């Protein structure tokens, strides 16, 4: 990384913004993977069953906090000019207009998911679920925002990290789809159990 000048408070904020951005992306990835596990009612080895939903929820709050830090430090640093509004309004930043737009889109979706989840009891099930599904859109947009707006991610070990990240999500989503395809259709369930228990009775 070339030295662009002395490190002062404003460049410090800029570095913190990039660092929290990377952490936020990793946390979002973990939240997505945990979400996939929740949807298949999986269990984390060594942990009780309730830990899956608990971790998914708690990590998502921490992830949002890191995104918040990432946004605030990027806006308040003097190194580049990013208005606060462009964190949620796409295409309104003079700096890296397109890549930041992606970030804004991802943040908007994330906020929608977070808020609807916090007031889940007052919403209709279908509404909550529909918004929650936007996570599958929010994550790739966040990844693209990260890749496009941070040159750090395009080389070195951060690049490998970003790639491993992407791969993990692709594999996990693939696993989830394959598992769902293997599910016994509702109409066939009772027939299967009938055959199994009636045979078991006869073989005794």
């Amino acid at each position, binding site marked *: 990384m070339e030295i662009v000048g002395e490190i002062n408070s404003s460049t410090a904020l800029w570095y913190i913004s990039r660092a929290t951005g990377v952490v936020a992306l990793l946390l979002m990835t973990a939240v997505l993977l945990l979400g996939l596990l929740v949807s298949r009612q999986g269990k984390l080895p060594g942990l009780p069953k309730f830990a899956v939903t608990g971790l998914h929820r708690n990590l998502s709050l921490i992830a949002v906090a890191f995104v918040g830090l990432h946004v605030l430090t990027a806006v308040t640093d003097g190194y580049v000019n990013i208005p606060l509004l462009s964190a949620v309004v796409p295409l309104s930043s003079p700096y890296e207009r397109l890549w930041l737009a992606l970030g804004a889109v991802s943040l908007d979706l994330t906020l929608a998911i977070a808020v609807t989840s916090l007031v889940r009891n007052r919403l209709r099930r279908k509404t909550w679920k529909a918004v929650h599904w936007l996570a599958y859109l929010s994550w790739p947009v966040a990844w693209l925002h990260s890749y496009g707006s941070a040159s750090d991610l395009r080389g070195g070990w951060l690049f490998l990290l970003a790639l491993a990240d992407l791969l993990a999500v692709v594999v996990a989503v693939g696993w989830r789809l394959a598992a769902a395809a293997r599910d016994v*259709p*509702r*109409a*066939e*369930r*009772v*027939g299967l*159990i*009938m055959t*199994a*228990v*009636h045979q*078991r*009775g006869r073989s*005794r």
Partner: protein
Amino acid sequence: MTPAVTTDVPRLLPRDGERIQNWRAHSAKFGRIPYRNAAGSLINDIEASGLTGRGGAAFPTYRKLAAVLEASVRKRVRPTVIANGAESEPASEKDATLLWLAPHLVLDGLQLAAEAVGAESAVLYTHAHRAGDVGARLREAIADRFDDHVAVRLAIAPPRFLAGQETALISHLDGGPAIPRFPFPRVTEQGLDGDPTLVQNAETLAHLALIARFGPGWFREIGTRREPGSFLATVRRADGRPRIMELPLGTPVPEVIGGLGQVTALLIGGYHGTWVPVARAAKLRLDNESLSSVGASVGAGILAALPGDRCGLVESARILRYLALESAGQCGPCLNGLPRMSAALTALARGRAPRGTRADLERWAGLVTGRGACHHPDGTARFVASALRTFAAELDRHGRGQCGATNAAPFLPVPQSAARTEEDWL
């Protein structure tokens, strides 16, 4: 085509068993539909009459009407009314017979119920296997009418045991499979298309049509004080042939079954009903007050007498196998419990059951009760428990490798084809 019809009480069914030829003949006999020209105004008469649902649950009809009207006013939407003629109980034929012989009574009731709750659309839901004859007749009847305020759509239920269940019916009419839904909020609040929905058994609507004409006092002239009026029963005596009878509530059982000498037990209430030993049954009357003393209820009016030469355990095992296969498979306890109960009762009926089979069966019956989204597991468990009690002596014999029956032929009607794919539920 139709089973024999006998009635000393010619209210719903024509005394001679002859069908009313057309709408004109119907109007000549009963008069035109007595519309009240006000939503809700019929409900007081229905309350005074004491009419309860004839589909099995015996829920006070006026309360359902009032609930749908109230919900539709509060939510500012139009409700829908549905005449439930699905009759998915294999041993029941009273609704099909009613729709065949007197469709206009049911259709009148549907119009009056629609007016009472302010509905603008109505559906008449019938069974797939009767779509050919009864369905064609209903289409004819609907086209024949001049008096209707609300258009009636005819819909066909898939041949599933659960197709006539209230939420399964709505699920099907909403375009999906006929499988039950979680019953909250209730369909009177949120049913077809999310609107308040009135689901009423076809026979109930026919009674409603007559009460609207002749008044609640007339309805109460027969029956008992707590359970007034008449009801349609599908009766199988020892000869196995189904007869449809219109009876006052409270009729003593021997008057209906007759020839109790050759009978070992009675099945009261259909396949979710109760087996009762004949000696006990002979002292009962056909009303819920009397039947509740043996844990039974009138239900949808199905009564069957098991002849002495048949084995009650074998019959029950055949029925239980059918009931298990007809599970929607949505709820864990029902999906897991009913097949295991079926295998256990089959083993007990075969006489080669390992030790503990009966205990397992009783445990599973207890485990499934009240733990599904509908009452299929409860009704099935009640049926099984009554079989174990009523045929206790037979169970002992089977335990020793013997059986008291001499006739292995099936007695009660049980459909052979099971549902295999999603299409079978549509």
